[in-house]
């Protein structure tokens, strides 16, 4: 169940170029959030809330961590929030990743600011004794974040578009070299998700989608994604953001 909650900023750090890690305290959110869910944040002076994924949860400290990149005016303001500020959020929102108890090796494929929800998932999967392989793509070296965190979960490949760090290219250039896996989970820009789901069309996998949102709760029909060519659709905010790759029509 989603609620409207106040979260207190406990920490905020620029961990890569234009990329911030923010720790937010709220017991309801930290107790109930599942990997893949997001917060719909009210940022002062903005008409619409901003959806940001939950990147990790610390139930002992009653905190959740978000990671965001400055993309426009809202995320810019968010980066200005000081420790102690209060942020209003709807959450935990959306459905989160479906876990597959039968799978033993899991491939995580993240692009840019699509990486955060995969971290929360990866931690959970490691707790469940799964073997994790991660491929993380970034624009350039300056944008790379959470490499160490993912390495602690398992084998991790970094790619950058310009080759300034890790291997050069796209995440799809690495997928072929990965030894067998049972299920993949991917989040990132739409072109990446299209390429990944095409490349891995015969695999079992889930993708997490982004779309501009109005309500964030399923009421306004702003964030739909077609499921077929006959008018079928899902709402990303409510039915997603995670979908089985066969469920939607990218």
């Amino acid at each position, binding site marked *: 169940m989603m609620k409207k909650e106040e979260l207190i900023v406990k920490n905020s750090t620029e961990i890569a170029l234009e990329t911030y890690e923010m720790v937010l305290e709220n017991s309801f959110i930290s107790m109930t959030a599942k990997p893949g869910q997001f917060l719909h944040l009210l940022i002062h002076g903005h008409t619409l809330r901003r959806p940001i994924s939950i990147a990790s949860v610390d139930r002992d400290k009653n905190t959740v961590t978000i990671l965001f990149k400055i993309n426009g005016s809202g995320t810019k303001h968010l980066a200005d929030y000081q420790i102690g500020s209060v942020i209003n959020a709807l959450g935990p929102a959306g459905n989160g990743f479906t876990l597959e108890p039968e799978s033993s090796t899991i491939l995580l494929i993240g692009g840019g600011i699509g990486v955060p929800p995969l971290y929360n998932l990866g931690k959970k999967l490691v707790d469940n004794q799964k073997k994790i392989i991660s491929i993380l793509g970034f624009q350039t070296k300056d944008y790379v974040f959470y490499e160490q965190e993912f390495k602690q979960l398992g084998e991790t490949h970094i790619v950058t578009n310009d080759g300034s760090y890790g291997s050069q290219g796209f995440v799809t250039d690495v997928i072929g070299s990965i030894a067998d896996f049972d299920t993949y989970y991917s989040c990132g820009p739409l072109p990446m998700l299209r390429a990944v789901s095409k490349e891995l069309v015969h695999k079992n996998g889930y993708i997490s989608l982004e779309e501009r949102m*109005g309500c964030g709760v399923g009421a306004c*029909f702003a964030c739909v994604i077609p499921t077929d060519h006959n008018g079928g659709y899902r709402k990303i905010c409510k039915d997603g953001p995670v979908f089985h790759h066969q469920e939607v029509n990218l």
Partner: protein
Amino acid sequence: MNSLQVELPGLNLKNPVMPASGCFGFGREYSEFYDLNKLGAIIMKAATGEARFGNHTPRVAETASGMLNAIGLQNPGVESIIEHEVSFLRDYQTPVIANIAGSSLEEYEHVAHSFNETDHVAALELNISCPNVKEGGIQFGTDPVMAARVTDRVKQASNLPVYVKLSPNVSDITAMAKAVESAGADGLSMINTLTGMQIHLPSRKPLLANKTGGLSGPAIKPVAIRMIYEVRQHVSIPIIGMGGITTAEDVLEFLLAGANAVAIGTANFQNPFVCPEIIDALPETLKRYGFSSVQEVVGKGILT
């Protein structure tokens, strides 16, 4: 009588506050936040004859104190709405208003007529901001003759009171209001969104897939107040006012301008509890400005 109570054709409202069409779906999502019995009424998302997928995404954009939307009338079609949505809302003691839309006179008639079948819709809100595709895309909402025609046809097809929802994108809002009043409208709903656009600089093209969208939110409130104030002096049917309401003070401003009740759209997205919070704040707000009932405020701001 409760100080918030409002009587309108077909609608006995416990308070003057209802969520606006398209901003509240069919109530399910918000029913998880609070009891829908709190609301004065519920205006459902637009219904068309058949299911529609609507426009491509992106469908919304943020603007200064407002937003643009181009959802494109996505809905499961009137039959499905009656079967799955009205039946859900039947469990609440809150009147339901069905917003109806179409691309031809026949479609409007069909949708209006369909709602006769269910006993839990109290009134129709006739959304005339749609182009008449059959007659070459002429806007129902900007031509008084067309607006009167669709009003008349819907009135004949339906046994429910009809509130015509006016578009603000016109040179003469009073002419529109008078035309639909003459055609038999039981009330007016105003205003719908102003047509606007945002261009996305990095991609150098309109941000919305539909290019243009409807501007809503606090940005348009002064336009809504002006139009209601103007129309109130020329028609006698009641007005459901809307456009940028976020507080109980805003509700008072609409009532003073001549609205009999109000609807709240965009503000639900910022604060899912905005409707019940405004309803709770109304009695105290009325008192602060020297009023004892909603009824008493209506049109009191009009200087003659």
